[in-house]
């Protein structure tokens, strides 16, 4: 076999701590290596051209590139060798950047390690066989999970692009956090005026099926052909009949139900519609508070409802939706600030969260847009904002910046002054993070035009004094301790992953970071893709994001889906399992263990044999390690290929071979 080896410098990234010329020289001595060289930037145009030229000049059968992680550029180089006429699986990569030059300081050891890694790649390549991808059909429907602004944008873009969309929202209405906001930065325009029409579009779009009050139960299949089971949670109201007239909510005698939409600063009725602009505008019953359901009394709503929509005995229902791609847009939730005992730990009624403040500010909120203290309904004079609560704080395991709270705090300070011209606002901050168009100007306006007093320092404690609160912080610029007497304290609580996000990730088989935010395929190059083909990300489920970024990501995810669906057939990955009929004894062990049900039993001249359904096989290789006969082999990761790598690393010869 004639193998070509290319050792990449990656500028100084690799060459800085690895003697690349030496590596090329050493690897060049291996028996099957016909050509070995180092190259400045293997992935660049001249780099790729060099590879193609070498394949032609030296009549190579396969290529090894020792450079960065294959998780980044393997597809790139596969295309390169294909352009030179080789099969794309006659290519191997050795990771001498992430696994060598970036983590080892000693050049000599690094160089030796790089030689070893390149050598195992060569060993593997000697066992590689050409593989041909098959084509399969695509179901051009897409599911969007989460109906916040990011999910809405993605759903609308996909639907406008002609795709059938299934939108699944956990709560009774779409809109997400944005629906709860009063105004939005940096323009301070009304949130519902921007979001409202989009929500209506969702409701009216012929291509969109909306399941509100629903969650994903399970996900089967693979890109192009997923099957998603969606659990529609019981609402106790038949939504096909309910017209959203609201009669029931007016008369329901159970008025102490938790009002989640209003962030618990108010209560609502047991049967309720989240808010007047809710989509879908349908009533649902909170079974915990319904007197009929808990005590078998009342039944008022059933009697009243003009369309006879009430169903006290409604059960959860599961529907199966076949789709070809999935966009996760499950957003974020707020940090539980009651973990801060020094801020009262939830004991002080006038120490509230920023999102509660949005509901107070909102004209359609429980206080009809008049700023009043939750405790006594009085208008506050001094309003203190505390930033970075549950963000940038290692002691509560939230070391990251939530990104948008500096901005919304400035917004809320401005709005406070607008609502209450006699008020005085104070903002305790550590840094102001406002990197966007018109963002910094915005926070400056809060100070310069609206008189917000910004104090650089954290707050150590808040405690009541009479009917006020003493906020004790530091002014680190002045180098002093400071105290403010506040009537109302608003905590700019940070964002964390939505509740249940990791659970959903496991169903979707995508990765998440230690905080529950979903991992993109590559931070810079593939920001809305995941490592699972056909699953995309939009909005703050990937990390805290403001509305402009969430919307941009929603559109980006939609364009990725539209791009994927622009082909009628997809190429399957040929790295699937394959059965050697002669060796298979039909024991069925592989059938039992395959997590995807990709192996079936067939009859071969009267004998049972295993057969792999190639489109279903995901290429995990579990079957290969299971088969007692070595009969089922995962292509490109066969026993012999892996053993060749092991062999290359070990001094002694192998004891047994599988063949």
């Amino acid at each position: 076999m004639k193998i070509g080896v290319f050792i990449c410098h990656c500028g100084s990234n690799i060459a800085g701590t690895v003697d690349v010329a030496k590596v090329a020289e050493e690897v060049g001595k291996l028996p099957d290596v016909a050509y070995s060289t180092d190259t400045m930037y293997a992935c660049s145009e001249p780099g790729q051209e060099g590879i193609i030229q070498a394949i032609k000049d030296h009549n190579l059968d396969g290529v090894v590139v020792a450079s960065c992680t294959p998780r980044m550029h393997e597809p790139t180089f596969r295309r390169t060798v294909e352009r030179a006429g080789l099969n794309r699986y006659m290519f191997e990569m050795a990771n001498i950047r992430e696994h060598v030059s970036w983590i080892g300081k000693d050049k000599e050891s690094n160089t030796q390690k790089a030689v070893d890694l390149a050598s195992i790649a060569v060993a593997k390549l000697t066992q590689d066989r050409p593989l041909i991808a098959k084509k399969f059909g695509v179901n051009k429907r897409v599911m969007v999970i989460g109906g916040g602004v990011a999910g809405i944008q993605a759903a609308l873009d996909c639907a406008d692009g002609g795709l059938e969309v299934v939108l699944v929202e956990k709560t009774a209405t779409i809109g997400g956090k944005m629906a709860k906001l009063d105004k939005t930065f940096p323009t301070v325009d009304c949130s519902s005026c921007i979001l409202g029409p989009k929500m209506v579009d969702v409701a009216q779009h012929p291509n969109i099926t909306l399941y509100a009050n629903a969650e994903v139960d399970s996900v089967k299949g693979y890109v192009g052909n997923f099957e998603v089971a969606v659990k529609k949670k019981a609402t106790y109201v038949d939504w096909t009949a309910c017209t959203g007239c609201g009669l029931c909510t007016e008369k329901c005698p159970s008025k102490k139900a938790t009002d989640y939409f209003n962030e618990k600063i108010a209560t609502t009725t047991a049967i309720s519609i989240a808010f007047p602009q809710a989509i879908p505008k349908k009533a649902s019953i909170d079974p915990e508070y319904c007197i009929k359901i808990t005590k078998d009394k009342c039944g008022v709503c059933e009697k009243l409802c003009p369309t006879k929509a009430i169903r006290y005995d409604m059960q959860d229902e599961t529907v199966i939706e076949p789709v070809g791609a999935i966009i996760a847009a499950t957003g974020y939730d707020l940090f539980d600030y009651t973990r801060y005992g020094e801020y009262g730990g939830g004991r002080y009624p006038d120490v509230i969260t920023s999102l509660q403040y949005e509901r107070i500010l909102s004209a359609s909120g429980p206080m009809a847009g008049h700023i009043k203290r939750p405790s006594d309904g009085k208008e506050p004079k001094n309003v203190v904002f505390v930033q970075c609560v549950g963000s940038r704080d290692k002691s509560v395991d939230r070391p990251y910046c939530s990104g948008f709270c500096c901005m919304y705090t400035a917004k809320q300070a401005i709005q406070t002054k607008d609502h209450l011209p006699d008020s005085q606002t104070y903002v305790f901050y550590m840094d102001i993070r406002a990197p966007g168009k018109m963002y910094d100007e915005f926070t400056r306006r809060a100070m310069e035009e609206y008189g917000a007093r910004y104090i650089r320092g954290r707050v150590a404690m808040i405690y009541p004094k009479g009917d006020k609160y003493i906020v004790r912080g530091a002014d680190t610029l002045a180098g002093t301790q400071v105290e403010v007497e506040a009537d109302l304290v608003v905590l700019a609580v940070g964002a964390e992953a939505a509740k249940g996000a990791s659970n959903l990730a496991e169903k979707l088989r995508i990765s998440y970071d230690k905080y529950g935010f979903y991992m993109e395929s590559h931070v810079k190059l593939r920001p809305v893709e995941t490592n699972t083909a056909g699953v995309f990300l939009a909005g703050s489920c990937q990390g805290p994001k403001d509305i402009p970024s969430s919307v941009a990501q929603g559109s980006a995810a939609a364009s990725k889906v539209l791009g994927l669906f622009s082909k009628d057939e997809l190429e399957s990955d040929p790295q699937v399992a394959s059965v050697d009929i002669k060796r298979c004894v039909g024991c069925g062990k592989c059938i039992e263990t395959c997590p995807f049900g990709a192996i079936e039993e067939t009859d071969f001249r009267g004998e049972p044999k295993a057969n792999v359904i190639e489109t279903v096989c995901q290429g995990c290789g579990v079957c290969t390690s299971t088969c007692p006969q070595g009969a089922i082999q995962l292509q490109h990761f066969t026993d012999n290929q892996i053993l060749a790598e092991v062999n290359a690393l070990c001094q002694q010869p192998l004891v047994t071979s599988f063949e």
Partner: protein
Amino acid sequence: MSAAPGNELRIIGFLCNWCSYGGADTAGVGRMTQPTDLRIIRVPCSGRIDPLFVLKALVNGADGVLVSGCHPRDCHYAEGNFYARRRLEVLKRFLQVLGIDERRFEYTWVSASEGQRWQEVVQKFTERIHELGPAPKITPDQMAMAETMAAQPR
């Protein structure tokens, strides 16, 4: 931290592509310095790791073998890591029978975001192998036994 050049021991890592290989990449991107002894072989899933690979490596001169996959419940292939775990547990007992110090073999879980965890895993395992020192040569008896085991249906 890393063994002096020339003093390295042979440590082989089998890492699943989705989680641990990604975790090792993340450690690299974060420039998290590690000892240089370890060489990584990439496999699609920890479920692909045949205990025989580990056995062969140890019998043929590796001083340590580290297997790392996705966290339980977090497997890219749903449950491959669950199979891996079962098999590798059995392997540990095999090693004892063979007279190979089972501390030379370890399996662990590291996710793609856990660069720092990966760094710690490599650090600790390498330290352990250095404490154990170079693996003693495998005797012909052991070799024969390994061969018998390798030939056993799994």
